């Protein structure tokens, strides 16, 4: 069943509600990066991923690797929307024994393909998945979401170089370019200069989009899947806003890894249309 832009926007809105609820309930976690990535992950799962939620370990599924694994509430919300886990499971975020571990964990949560949480690892893992798919002569793909701050890890560039060398056309990266990292704005922590040029120079197909405009997001995913871009690895550079959708979190480095208080939580629910003002 194909989803309209409005359908996708509504799913993303519901996921935003769940993200804020998770971090508020846990009084910990990473709302900013979850809110910046959520439109992208929603569209990817709802319209592109070849998956079977009732059979999460299906061998021939597409893989999705959330390399910025701390932004787990976003992924958990989408997994719940897709039916991999229940909405009740979302209450286990950061709770002892919970399906929803602090960082996404393949040993704990159905539908999670890689245990992330340490930055700079997911792209390499995705390269392994893509290499295996090629050896299997399978058409399955590996989608990897990385963060912009994450690109400061040298291992990202080991993987970028290797994936292009091996012409892994089934490896697709989405960069959540939200411009904020743990301590501050990326521009203050470590300037990264011309990011599209860097990836092009490493031999990747590159496209830039607004990561919150669902029409552009769909065009971006079309780009990743286009046959002419399957000659090698491709990256979608999605310009996003950290904390997108909650006014006081937007572009605010404080909400990289902090939970809203009760008053802020209420305001967020109002802004997301969940409750009356």
């Amino acid at each position, binding site marked *: 069943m194909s989803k309209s832009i409005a359908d996708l926007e509504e799913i993303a809105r519901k996921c935003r509600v769940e993200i804020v609820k998770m971090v508020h309930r846990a009084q910990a976690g990473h709302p900013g990066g979850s809110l910046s990535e959520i439109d992208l992950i929603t569209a990817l799962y709802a319209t592109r991923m070849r998956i079977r939620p009732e059979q999460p370990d299906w061998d021939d599924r597409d893989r999705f690797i959330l390399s910025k694994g701390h932004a787990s509430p976003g992924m958990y919300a989408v997994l719940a929307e897709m039916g991999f886990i229940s909405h009740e499971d979302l209450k286990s975020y950061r709770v002892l024994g919970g399906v929803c571990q602090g960082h996404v964990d393949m040993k704990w949560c159905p539908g999670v393909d890689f245990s992330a949480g340490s930055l700079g690892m997911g792209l390499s893992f995705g390269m*392994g*998945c893509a290499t295996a798919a090629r050896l299997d002569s399978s058409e399955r793909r590996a989608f990897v979401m990385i963060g912009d701050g994450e690109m400061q890890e040298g291992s990202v560039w*080991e993987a970028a*170089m290797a994936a292009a060398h091996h012409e892994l056309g089934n490896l697709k990266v989405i960069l959540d370019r939200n411009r904020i990292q743990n301590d501050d704005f990326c521009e203050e922590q470590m300037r990264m200069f011309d990011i599209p040029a860097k990836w092009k120079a490493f031999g990747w197909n590159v496209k830039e989009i607004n990561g919150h405009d669902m029409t552009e997001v769909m065009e971006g995913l079309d780009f990743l899947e286009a046959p002419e871009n399957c000659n090698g690895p491709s990256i979608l550079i999605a310009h996003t806003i950290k904390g997108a959708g909650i006014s006081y979190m937007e572009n605010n480095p404080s909400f990289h890894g902090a939970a809203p208080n009760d008053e802020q939580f209420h305001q967020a629910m109002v802004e997301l249309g969940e409750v009356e003002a």
Partner: protein
Amino acid sequence: MTRMAATRDGYGQALLDLADNPKVVVLEADLGKSTKSLHFRKAHPERTVSCGIGEQNMLLVGAGMAASGYIPFASTFAIFTERAFEQMRNGVARPNLAVHLCGSHGGTHTGTDGSSAQSIEDLAVFRTLPNVTVLHPCDDVSTRILTTRLAGTKSPSYMRTARNKTPVLYDDIDPDSIQIGKGIELKDGNDVAIIACGVLVSESLKAADMLMQEGINASVIDMHTLKPLDGQLVDQMVERCGAIVTAEDHNVIGGLGSAVAEHLVANKFAPLEMVGVPDRFGESGQADEMLDVMKLSAKYIVEAAKKAISRK
């Protein structure tokens, strides 16, 4: 005349032995000529992934392939496996993906490249990781057999091999007697037990001969698996000999000696003397010279054995 061979050659042979299994893949980081995975690459280029000089990437490409049903064997120098320690920790061991990492050129025995290439801490660091089996075989035959056994396991491993040739001990052995997690008693004695791994197993046999000339009858154990440690065999040695020596071309901190000590303090106890690199970095020198400089050679094992006996 004793045949001489390097354990890394046994690793290379094992990869060829395993090639009939289409799920076995080999990952390289520009050192296949040295670790001996090059034979597999020549025979099966389609199943060999070059990761360039990028060990961190290699470990996690292996993890992705293991999670996709493959059995990856990744190798580089022992020292460079340490560069990818956190990848091994977070991306391989934690999700318990059966990536088999081989670090060749381990220990000061590596020789003239000097201290930058002489890993003396690899066994210690990988031994701290849950789910990871840690091996350091002593000859090419046992390396070949143990490597092929790894392909049937469901968890990750670290195996150290050595660059230089040492005496081959197992040319005529029944392969069934070489099993992961089971030490091998090479010489049966009752005065002191020398528990060794890797290149120091043959030195320990030399030491046992020297001790015998002085009327001391030593057992010699090839403890090729550091984790899980064959604690039952250690207990037997304690009961029979009442004094233990460990011998390894590795820092005395954290390796085989530590593994045995950890076992002893929680079980049947006996005096323990540890022969190992005395918490210092190496230098350029020939392999045999390094064993002397680092106080690892047979005469030092003999000294340690006497001291352990004196502490009974």
